[in-house]
């Protein structure tokens, strides 16, 4: 594992993503759902919305770093608002 050059923050980062994936898999098995059509006019399931949230969050973080440049943790607040919006309307 040494060659992978792990650090605590990246380990936490991947741990959180792994937990999210497991949680959503369990949710999908316990509470099956039918896809719905939201503002993007495409059918999405919870998993799709998680993907859109994660991908969008990556771009939000990069944009924050590029345009604001300081206080990176605050970008997570924007991500949380974005996530809520995606799960509510997409």
């Amino acid at each position, binding site marked *: 594992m040494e060659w992978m050059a792990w650090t605590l923050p990246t380990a936490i980062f991947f741990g959180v993503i792994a937990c999210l994936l497991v949680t959503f898999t369990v949710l999908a098995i316990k509470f099956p759902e039918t896809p719905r059509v939201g503002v993007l006019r495409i059918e999405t399931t919870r998993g799709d919305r998680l993907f859109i949230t994660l991908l969008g969050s*990556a771009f939000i973080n990069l944009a924050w770093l590029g345009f604001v440049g300081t206080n990176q943790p605050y970008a997570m607040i924007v991500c949380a608002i974005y996530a809520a919006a995606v799960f509510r309307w997409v």
Partner: protein
Amino acid sequence: MDKTVNQKAWFLVLPVLVLVAFSAVIPLMTVVNYSVQDTFGNNQFFWAGLEWFDDMLSSERMWDALARQAAFSAIILAIEIPLGIFVALNMPKRGFWASLCLVLMSLPLLIPWNVVGTIWQIFGRVDIGLLGYALDKIGVSYNYTQDITAAWITVIVMDVWHWTSLVALLAYAGLQSIPDAYYQAAKIDQASRWAVFRYIELPKMAGVLMIAILLRFMDSFMIYTEPFVVTGGGPGNATTFLSIDLVKMALGQFDLGPAAAFSIMYFLVILLISWVFYTVMVNLDKREGN
């Protein structure tokens, strides 16, 4: 009667999962780890935080490479897709000539990237290459090692030569799947050639064309070997596309941290565009299904 649902079949996917983890997920995780650290070799790493991402976001070099890459992909798509459709529409539908066309069209697809690069590298040379020599003799100034326009034209024509047949073959497959009844109905309505194309052929080809666009986009967006062999990214940096720049940074300069940050951003852009294509494709299929 209720259908019993058995999810055990998912276990059959496990080997693929292991393979993908080994070949993609674990290397990607390592890249993420590299992107937040600095190294001087010897497998020793020092925490750098988001410094490399910040550097890359304000790096003119990366934005220039991205702009060149986007321009290259846009140009080759704008040429290869219409040209591929045009070729497919004019290919014989059946018989000996259809088979011959298919074989001839597949030939460029079988040639490895570096060989394609070498072919064009020699073909374009003014001293011994057929194309370069002929252009020089008729008085056209053409030198892809010194002139930016010539270098761009060479890499674009090379890509068109290599990959248009893929689009043509896919479009041809789409055309072959249209039942004759559609054409007969169009004939009864005295539809023009354009109307037949616009309302019958194009909609029926939409699915395969999306696949063709996705494949060509992905391939052109990560193109490395052909321009590297022909121009080496030059003259200057004129044909240094994203992957060429990335390899220079990661292996040439051994700047693992910045290169890792660069490749994560590269990956995110590809992921976003592929997701858009994929979503459009799936929705097209669903609309057709309805």
